[in-house]
């Protein structure tokens, strides 16, 4: 089991933190870094919190404690379905098996006068959804149909259900929630090698799958990186899978430093066949080796290809052999300006 040094600091300037008071890593006079504070990375959920915080702002982990030996809790799968409250939008998670619904003591608690204490039952089994009224006072509707008591009725994702006068829609449990910057952003600070949110690739994270909309945030194994040559934005890590890139925080890779990069600028997809970049219709375009890409047409990237977005130029470096990585790590470790940690050091764990 890997012991993680949770006190490691990672310099960063995520936009939403810039107002907070934070400590600075010592001996650091890089002007770009003066905007950054020290942050601490949570060993459980990998999100960054200011050093002044006692608990992780995301998962609540007490940051001063050592993480125990219990990292390999079996991941909990995404709920098979959710019930979305028609007026408030509140999402009630449904579980595989029987879910009771009612005003008191039920699995799904609905505080509404027309809902009976024990009103109905929603059973989910092998992908099928069955709704059954349990003799409620004000009845249950599946779609437009009013169902009698104790009459199991099939429903599916998208069906509108009505319990008394409370209305809700069945939705897929893996639907993404509305974008919330705190949940999705990986902010990259000005200087290179200061990336948060890239976890070690062989660390079994607990509960990783419980909130599927966050899976993309866990960058996973890196296929390579777009190393900055020059320009205001930062080096971009490229994980396997798809990441969106842009200036705004709802992108998986946010590059707020370059104002010539569009809010939603490009997408990089990596699979067995290679690394591809697609311009998403950005205002100032994306060039590869000096050739401007057609929007929405993907372009393969090879080692040493030069990519320009906004005012920042990059060179592609695909994943390097382990020896080379260790060398690079040793090198970066010798520089006293370096912040320890970051994804360079995590690959070899």
């Amino acid at each position: 089991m890997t012991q993680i040094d949770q006190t490691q600091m990672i310099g960063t300037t995520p936009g939403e933190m810039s107002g907070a008071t934070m400590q600075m890593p010592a001996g650091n006079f890089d002007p770009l870094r003066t905007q950054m504070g020290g942050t601490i990375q949570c060993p459980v959920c990998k999100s960054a919190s200011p050093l002044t915080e006692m608990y992780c702002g995301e998962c609540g982990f007490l940051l001063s404690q050592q993480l125990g030996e219990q990292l390999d809790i079996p991941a909990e799968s995404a709920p098979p379905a959710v019930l979305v409250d028609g007026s408030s939008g509140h999402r009630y998670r449904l579980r595989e098996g029987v879910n009771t619904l009612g005003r008191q003591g039920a699995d799904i608690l609905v505080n509404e006068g027309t809902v009976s204490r024990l009103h109905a039952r929603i059973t989910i089994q092998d992908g099928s959804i069955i709704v059954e009224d349990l003799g409620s006072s004000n009845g249950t509707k599946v779609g437009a149909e009013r169902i009698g008591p104790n009459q199991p009725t099939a429903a599916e994702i998208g069906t509108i259900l009505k319990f008394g006068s409370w209305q809700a829609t069945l939705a897929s449990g893996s639907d993404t929630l509305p974008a919330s910057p705190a949940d999705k952003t990986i902010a990259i600070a000005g200087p290179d090698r200061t990336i948060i949110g890239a976890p070690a690739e062989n660390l079994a994270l607990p509960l990783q799958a419980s909130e599927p909309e966050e899976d993309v945030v866990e960058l996973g194994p890196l296929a390579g990186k777009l190393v900055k040559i020059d320009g205001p934005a930062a080096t971009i890590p490229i994980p396997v899978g798809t990441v969106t890139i842009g200036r705004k925080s709802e992108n998986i890779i946010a590059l707020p430093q370059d104002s010539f990069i569009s809010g939603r600028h490009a997408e990089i997809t990596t699979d067995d066949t290679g690394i591809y970049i697609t311009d998403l219709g950005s205002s100032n375009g994306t060039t590869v080796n000096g050739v401007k890409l057609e929007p929405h047409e993907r372009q393969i990237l090879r080692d040493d290809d030069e990519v320009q977005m906004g005012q920042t130029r990059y060179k592609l470096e695909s994943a390097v052999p382990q020896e080379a990585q260790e060398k690079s790590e040793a090198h970066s470790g010798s520089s006293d300006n370096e912040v320890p940690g970051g994804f360079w050091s995590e690959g070899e764990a």
Partner: protein
Amino acid sequence: MEDRTQMIGGAQPTVMGGSRTQMGFDPARTAMGMSMNTLEVECLAGNRYAMGPEVSRENALIVLKSGTQQLGRRAPLNICLVIDRSGSMEGEPLEYVKRACEYVVDMLEPNDILSIVTFEEQVDILMPARRVVNKPLVKEHIRRIEVGNTTNLYDGLMAGCMQIASVLGQTPGYVNRVLLLTDGEPTAGLKDFNSIVQQVGLQKSQGISITALGFGSEYNEELMAGIARRSGGNYYYIQRPDLLPEVFRRELETLMTIVAKNVQVRFQLSKWVQIRQIYGSQPTFGQRTVDITMPDIERGTVRTALLEIELDRHPIGTFRVLKAEVSYDDIVNNRAERISSDCIFEFTNDRNLIAANVHPVVANELAIAQASQNLQKTMMGMRTQQFTAMGAMDELQKTRAILINAGQTGQAQEVDAALQSLQRGGADAEKTLMGTIMNLDQGRRQ
């Protein structure tokens, strides 16, 4: 200082909390400490431990305490008396109402603002909102109140709220309160429960609460308690006309001890945590936040809210599962304040630890929440004739025992009063119980 816990002539105003709980919310203790805050907040985990490897349901309790010492000013009042002068108030009731209103005038100081609205079929503004300077003149107007016909409660209530609202801009830091007195069902104007209560909710959102004073045996206790509950005001059942002046006096004294108003609680949830319910509240759910509004808080009192939470699997270790952020207007110091408290659980895989570490105060609150739900069931059973009087009395006995056990002696006495009423074959048990339920749900603990 008068002992408020005594009951007066069988009136059961629900603000009379009775004795303090056994479980040790002692406001006096906090006042003696170092704290300079008007309110203190504490967020208690229902158990020190929770199971890490499985999904579990737990409780959490937020406790708001105000100190007992009078530091600084008393709350200036902006109040409106909204008085039912329908035909049924004729004679003794109206005479006592006038006396009660005069009492209020006597108690107010030049800094306070008073307005008086009367209603029957029509609504009259007897006195628009202004400072009480010429007391004899105000009383003269009060003496001229005469009975009319029907009961247009809604329009009367809204006219009262408008009087308060008309001076809101000039009265920051005031306690804004309508005292609504009625003896009957609404018979004119808007009568529908949901519509009225919804309007009351809008008034609350601009900072106006309503204290509902139900008089006699004919008023609609569900509506009156609903109005008070939705707006964070108090509810009183006044059995006899001669009790009117005393109840008005007591309510006014209560208002004068308010130290915090506009009390809002936001629960910030950590990842892997959901709130299933907050007992007795209608919370607003956000993506990772849950908001509730609490009633105004008087000096030397405790308000609680009990949460049921669901915890997903967690790694073994200590986690803050939620943070309660309380914002309020501090009336003593006339400024906005924020306080917060963390709710911490230690996740373990040792079931024995969980069994041995239940928090007694939270467990007690859970028993109280249970008692409230029992009372609601009993009342519903009485209405739908599911329960005979004997059956209802059985249920009430049980609930009373729970309340006594939970240290809620005052509320237990109210259940007692309802029991006695049932024994006499009286029809007003529900009027008393309605207030008991409201007090239990609103977490007023003394």
